[in-house]
């Protein structure tokens, strides 16, 4: 398969970037999107050119490191997959693909398609954990958790922190990410002791990082590779307002 790539090239955070066009030739339909970029980069390196910088790590859809906006959609045209799990057979031979980094004030471009997502780390550091002493491993049924709650907590915990929700949102809001992180703890008994403090602290950190205000458009849910539901945002709002009302 052959593709024309319109790639955003930018030296660093200070310089301004621009699109550069490349040809990706003889690509296997079974190549992943990142493998396709590897092929292009190898050719460029052989010619002594600077390869396209992009983020990746596990390449199996579980770490949340990869992320490219492809033809205006974070992680590309398929639903519920990461960029690394997107395959070239999902495109048509001869397609022109526009590759851009996540665009958000809170995610400054580091280089080419790589952005700095440490704002997410700051949000987690503000409360996305449990610091109570849980003692030894309890009896299996010592702490009953309703099945539905366990399921919802697990669904929320599936968030890999990739930032596609922010990239997709017209407001560059991080609410889907924060709501997933607040929800998976709020739904379980271990998360209860610190729940009020946690939600306030995480929302405050989110606002300070320069993310926009959520207006419930749902673009995040549509692009999330882990199908994190907007239900979590409803839960986050509820948790937050309760924490404001009752301390």
């Amino acid at each position, binding site marked *: 398969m052959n593709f024309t790539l*319109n790639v955003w090239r930018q030296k660093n955070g200070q310089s301004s*970037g621009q*699109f550069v066009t490349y040809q990706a030739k003889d690509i296997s339909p079974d190549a992943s999107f990142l493998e396709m970029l590897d092929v292009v980069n190898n050719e460029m390196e052989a010619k002594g050119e600077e390869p396209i910088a992009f983020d990746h790590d596990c390449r199996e859809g579980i770490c949340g490191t990869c992320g490219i*906006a492809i033809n*205006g*959609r974070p992680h590309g045209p398929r639903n519920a997959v990461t960029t690394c799990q997107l395959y070239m057979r999902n495109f048509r031979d001869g397609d022109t693909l*526009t590759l*851009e980094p996540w*665009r*958000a*004030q*809170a*995610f*400054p*471009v580091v280089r080419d398609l790589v952005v700095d997502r440490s704002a997410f780390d700051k949000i987690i550091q*503000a*409360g996305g954990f449990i*610091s109570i002493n849980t003692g030894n491993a309890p009896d299996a049924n010592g702490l009953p958790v309703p099945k539905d709650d366990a399921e*919802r907590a697990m669904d929320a915990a599936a968030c890999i922190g990739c930032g596609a929700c922010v990239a*997709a949102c*017209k*407001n*560059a*809001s991080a609410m889907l990410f924060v709501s997933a992180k607040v929800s998976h703890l709020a739904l379980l008994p271990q998360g209860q002791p*610190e729940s009020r*403090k*946690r939600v306030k*602290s995480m*929302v*405050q*950190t*989110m*606002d*300070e990082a*320069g*993310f*926009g*205000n*959520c*207006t*419930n*458009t*749902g*673009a995040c849910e*549509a*692009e999330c590779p882990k199908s994190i*539901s*907007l*239900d*979590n*945002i*409803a*839960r*986050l*709002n*509820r*948790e*937050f*307002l*309760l924490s404001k009302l009752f301390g």
Partner: protein
Amino acid sequence: MATTSSPKPSVGGSGMNSILKKTLVALTGLALIGFLVTHLAGNLFLFGGSTAFDGYAARLEAMGPLLIVAEIGLAAIFVAHVVMAIKLTVENKAARGPQGYAVNDNQSEAPSRFMIVSGVLVALFVILHVKGFKFGPREEFGGSLYALVMNEFANPGVAIFYIFSMLILGTHLTHGFWSLFQTLGLIKPEKRRKVKQICTVLGWGIALGFLVLPLFGLLSGKKRTPLPDGVKELIQKTEAVR
């Protein structure tokens, strides 16, 4: 666990946190929907002719200072809703950063993306509507609000403007109605889809309910009915009390 850094100003530097700002938009939005429902209920008297409609108007106006207080409150809620929504929009534009997407294939539903556009159009409509009817030339029609309204609606330009505005209101409510419950955390997260469906139906019910009024006026043609005697007496009585 709690951050020790002193709180920096949040997005846009208002010092008010993002969820509280949205809560204000949601609460004022809910109040405005409440107003729309009562306003629509009252307006249905239009179908009852001059006796019913002018009688209703006279009874409302007989409330005197109470009505004025309610009107000022409503105007304040309206202004708060608009001002906060504009503020959020400005902040949200800034949150994208200096460089936007060259290609953007946003997957959200269109009404949710154009709330500021539909909102501004509805606000302009409200201004013209209040100017034309509440502060309209009622004396020209012998003091009959019914005659004033019906004559305005008989004018195709006015009727089409009203009908168009109500369609815009419908799209605004399509997103705004359910979205406010999401923001207020009033719905059980699991009930979100149901609430969205119900709110969409109710929202369009309100918009289309208003829409039939100009349509009715347009189809009825011009009417110059003098104020019915009963209503005239009611107005005189109110004035005597004042």
